[in-house]
């Protein structure tokens, strides 16, 4: 892969052009990574591929090896695996709360202690998720609570 960078003083926004023989999985991943830097993620919705703003995401769930992204009113399918999304999104306050779920902390309305040292997470749409004991300590550490 060859990377060319042209610095021009007269352009207002950065333009990235990808020249390729075909839009294969590698190109898809490259686009996905670039979109995340731009606080967007490529998702599939009704057979269409669209860019979803990260701030709209409530949580991401892995079901039967597929990753679904939940917003207040829609469910999208992701091209990435849950662990990949975890790595890419952790800088934007997305945090793993159990084996199958990542939550956008920006869209949490409250966190409370729950039975068996777990955490009860209430999202901005009042949906509730439970952080397992295994991940609860990590969340507390991220929040700066012992």
């Amino acid at each position, binding site marked *: 892969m060859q990377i060319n960078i042209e610095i021009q003083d007269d352009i207002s926004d950065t333009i990235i052009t990808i020249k390729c023989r075909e839009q294969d999985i590698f190109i898809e991943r490259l686009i996905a990574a670039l979109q995340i830097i731009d606080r967007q993620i490529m998702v599939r919705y009704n057979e269409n591929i669209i860019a979803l703003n990260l701030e709209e995401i409530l949580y991401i769930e892995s079901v039967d090896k597929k990753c679904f992204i939940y917003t207040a009113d829609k469910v999208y399918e992701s091209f990435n695996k849950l662990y990949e999304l975890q790595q890419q999104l952790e800088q*934007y*306050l997305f945090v793993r709360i159990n084996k199958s779920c990542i939550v956008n*902390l920006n869209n949490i309305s409250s966190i409370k202690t729950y039975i068996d040292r777990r955490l009860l997470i209430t999202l901005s749409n009042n949906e509730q998720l439970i952080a397992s004991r295994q991940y609860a300590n990590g969340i507390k550490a991220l929040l700066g609570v012992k």
Partner: protein
Amino acid sequence: MEEKKHLLDYLAQIIQIFGITILVITVICHFTGDEARDYSTMFVLGSKGIPINTILQFLLSSVCVTGIRFLFFSDKIFKKMAIAKRTMAMLISVIALTGIFAYLFGWFPVNQAICWISFFICFGICFIISAVVSYLKETMDNKQLEEALKRLKEEQNGSINRSK
């Protein structure tokens, strides 16, 4: 690794319950041991101390109480149960267990109403104290979590504005 951690958690909980029980009974024994000598196997030595048999019985009851707690307060068996129902079920189970142990080990004469009344008073006081302590701790923890979440969001929003 996680299973090992769970096992250690349960052991810690058993030791906690056992330690508190022994401490409470030791205090009771010190003050009323001589008078209760004829009524309870727990105080056969009077105010001199608790017999080894009783200590082992308390250890067994601590293991059972921890087991009951595990039964109702982890989602391993009862997946969807309200916290109030879990607490009530645990309370009833612990009372039943104590009754069985009292009968089996002669902790107190189970055919005397006054003994049961005393038991319920003691149990009630301990339950209220532990419920109040748990409530205060939970409120404090929740407040801490809320504040930390708010702070983290503010920091994140601050860094976004700076980078724009």
